């Protein structure tokens, strides 16, 4: 019953759409790009956009780029909690997916630091999520070894997943394998958490599409930057969770066979040829993205598909998930622009950093 209500929380849906109405427009980005310094950009965001509240106390003159970035990222989480608490949706598992994602991201971040021997995770740690995560984030930032990691997360479900990745003889932790395991589990749980909603098809299709896009982007990077073979790439891809195809209720944009062919492509050109023949390639062409660098084009397509899904979404979970993705992209865009300003990039170059 509670889940049914959570699937059709109309007030939340209306609230999200109202918030979306305040999103940054191209003219806002044009104003941001024209700012001559980080302080001016921060002041603009504070005075003229929906970031006024999170940036309320800042002093435009003295603000540091990292601090501004940190406040913007926090704004994302604050918005998330604001929406979830509006109709008390927090205790429905699906709506806590951002906390689960934060947990996964921070464990992976921790492993990166263990492997590199540089321990500054605290700098970017989203410490405000500590109240919600199933382990202590500050303790995680203090971790210096795999054993210490297990002490912090061992009693959570991540303990069981991580123990098989214990490095031998003080060697490095197999990061790609851990990442695959954690992300696979995250998406699996995420998709399963949507099954409680009476009308989850739209969202499930979107999530499967999202996995496809992540896999294609990663496969392209592995092919181009590391010249990996088909089997190797396939082993590192997030498996799309199984579903009962006999019901034929979900639209699948690409088959596993086509994806495998792409992974096995001998070189970049063959990969791109196969990509352009697929549904995703045709979408890129329809959106006029073929002249862009491939990675950028794929990321842009992912964003536009999210925007489309948001516009078409008619259930609260679908609106909620797609909105959060759009907000995340917007914040990343702002952060890229601010970095561009900080490093005095030409205006034209900064413009190309925005995903739209």
């Amino acid at each position, binding site marked *: 019953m509670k889940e049914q209500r959570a699937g059709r929380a109309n007030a939340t849906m209306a609230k999200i759409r109202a918030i979306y109405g305040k999103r940054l427009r191209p003219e806002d980005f044009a104003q941001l790009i024209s700012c001559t310094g980080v302080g001016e950009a921060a002041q603009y965001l504070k005075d003229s956009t929906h970031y006024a509240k999170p940036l*309320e*106390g800042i*002093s435009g003159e*003295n603000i*540091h780029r*990292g*601090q501004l970035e*940190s*406040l913007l990222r*926090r704004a994302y989480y604050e918005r998330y909690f604001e929406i979830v608490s509006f109709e008390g949706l927090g205790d429905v598992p699906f709506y806590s997916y951002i906390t689960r994602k934060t947990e996964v991201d921070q464990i992976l971040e921790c492993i990166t630091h263990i492997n590199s021997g540089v321990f*500054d995770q*605290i*700098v970017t*740690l*989203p*410490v*405000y999520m*500590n109240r919600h995560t199933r382990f202590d984030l*500050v303790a995680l*930032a*203090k971790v210096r070894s795999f054993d210490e990691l297990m002490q912090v997360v061992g009693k959570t479900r991540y303990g069981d997943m991580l123990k098989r990745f214990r490095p031998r003889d003080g060697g490095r932790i197999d990061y790609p394998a851990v990442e695959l395991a954690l992300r696979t589990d995250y998406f699996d749980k995420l998709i399963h958490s949507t099954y409680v909603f009476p009308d989850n098809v739209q969202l499930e299709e979107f999530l499967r599409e999202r996995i496809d896009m992540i896999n294609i982007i990663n496969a392209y990077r592995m092919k181009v930057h590391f010249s990996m073979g088909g089997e190797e790439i396939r082993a590192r891809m997030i498996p799309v969770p199984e579903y009962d195809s006999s019901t034929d209720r979900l639209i699948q944009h690409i088959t596993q066979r086509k994806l495998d062919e792409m992974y096995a492509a001998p070189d970049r050109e063959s990969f791109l040829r196969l990509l352009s023949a697929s549904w995703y390639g045709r979408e890129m062409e329809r959106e006029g993205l073929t002249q862009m660098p491939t990675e950028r084009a794929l990321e842009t397509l992912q964003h536009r598909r999210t925007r489309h899904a948001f516009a078409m979404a008619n259930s609260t979970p679908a609106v909620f998930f797609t909105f959060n993705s759009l907000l995340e992209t917007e914040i990343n865009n702002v952060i890229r622009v601010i970095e561009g300003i900080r490093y005095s990039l030409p205006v034209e170059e900064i413009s190309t950093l925005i995903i739209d």
Partner: protein
Amino acid sequence: MASIERMLYTEIQGSESVLDETLYAISRSGLFHMEDATARLTGSNRRQERLENPYTRPLKQLSEISAVSGVKLAQADCADIPDSSTGAISEEIERLNASTSEIASAIRSVEEELERLRSVLEQISHIAGGSADSLDFDFEQLFACKNIKTRYGRFTAESYEKLPYYADKSFIFTEYGKDNGYYYGFIFAPLSEAEETDEILSDLYFERIHIPEYVRGNVSDAVAHLKDAIAAEEKSLNDERAKMAACVGEHKGDLDRYFSKLKSMHDTFELRSKVLITGGRFKVIGFLPASDEKAFREIFKGAAFEESEPVSVSTRRVTDKDDLEPPVKLRNGKFSEPFTMFVDLYGLPGRGDVNPTTFLAISYTLLFGIMFGDLGQGFVLLLAGIFLGHVKKIKLGRIIERLGVSSMIFGTLYGSVFGFEELLDPVYESLGITFLPFKTIANITTVLYTAIGIGVVLILIAMLINIIKGLAEKDWGRALFSNSGLAGMVFFVSLLLMLLGPSIGIPAGGTAYVLLLIILPLLLMFLHEPLSELCRGKGFRIEGSVGDFIASNFFECFEYLLGYATNTLSFVRVGGFVLSHAGMMSVVLALSRMAGNASPVVIVIGNIFVMGLEGLLVGIQVLRLQFYELFSRYYTGGGKPFVPVSINYDEMIS
């Protein structure tokens, strides 16, 4: 009487050498609505090449002088300043700007110092606001410590939450206040650890706040000292501003004239972008209210250039064949004029529309009065309307004023004063009237039937307006066959008579009646489009297949039928609100009886509540009835407003 001003399409031509003078004359007249001649006459969207406006710079300087000195510039007579002397004016402004620049820079520097002092005071206040009692230390002594490094500043909430991570480090943070998501306080660290502490603080984006050297003594002393310093700077700022105002004030008369001249030249120059200039000749096009034609021609007769370089003004009526969209200027009577804002809200009359303001004003006032009838509350509305409309100059106030009077009239008919339904009874009895037909609570059925009756009358009037306008425009389809045309009206009235006639003693029915007055009009509405085409002389044509035609017109007719029913029943709300008003006030009176000694308070609060809530609701509901039930029958809207070009002396160039 309400009507729409007839507009004349106007072309003004002349030599390019007198363009600016011509545009100035047009602007000053306030009679001419200008259109883009380049786009209209050449079919191009490209406007005349845009030249930089030479009057922008001196106007900006004037604006700065005005802002810094606080001397507000106003329109003044500048007729004696020839156009050729604008260069000299600019130089004069430059000179004044230079002579005031020293005072302006002193003002700026005092403002900056004041801002800094206020900021420091705010920061120090965080310390005082924390636990000032325990802070009985001397700032000088604190910063003079040799073995301890002290920093004062603030952490974001996020960084503050990260402090436990550094629990093993040898610095401590003493928090003295929280504001806007920031934590304020002192950091104390041993000198040997100062460097590492500063690095950590940098990672945590600790914003250090420098306490100026002149802040001495304990917190209370520092706050007092800062307040004195701020007061001194404020006095200095006022002195400098007074000096500036005196300096600029000396030239106020001249500056007003310069401003007026430059602004008129500036705004006139801006109009050039809409002028077609070719072969040394210019052409300006636009619209002129027919009633102002004579006055408009007069403005050129007295112009200095009229003899040497005459300007030709040609006007003509706009016909249906013209591909022109004249602007709309409504002409309304005194009573209906404030209601123009509702017409604006919906959209000004489009081509073929009537001016709906009078009908709207009368029906709106009538319906509001019926729904909100109360002599006392109406009087309060009248007073509020007078205050808002005449003192505050809010247009809605003048509408409220009229609604108040209407409410008072109907309140008198209902016998209702601030919710007391019997208060007027003795008055009526003394006049020999013992029975009030609209005494609301006693006559619920009468009220509801009357409401529907009023709705029917208003709908019929709306239909009649539509028919008359359709006939005047020779739009036979609209006048005769539409659902708000003659066919619709006959159908609506006949159906109502058939349904309600017997109960009021009018027998209506029978085969001939049904065939001629119900079926035939319905059939005409069904064939509305092909019959309209036939009337236009284009033959009886059906677009698309016959099947599609039947299907789409069947549903359209079905919608008409539903429309007649819903439009009529919609007016039940008029009666509903009459009853709800009486009902709510009876609750207020019941509560007041329960309140004992506080009874007058309850009555006053209750009346204010009912007036606020119900007044707003009734206002919205009546507007809804106007827009949905009545406008939909005779009005389309979508016209563009008549905006004559003029010189805007209220707008500064900054």
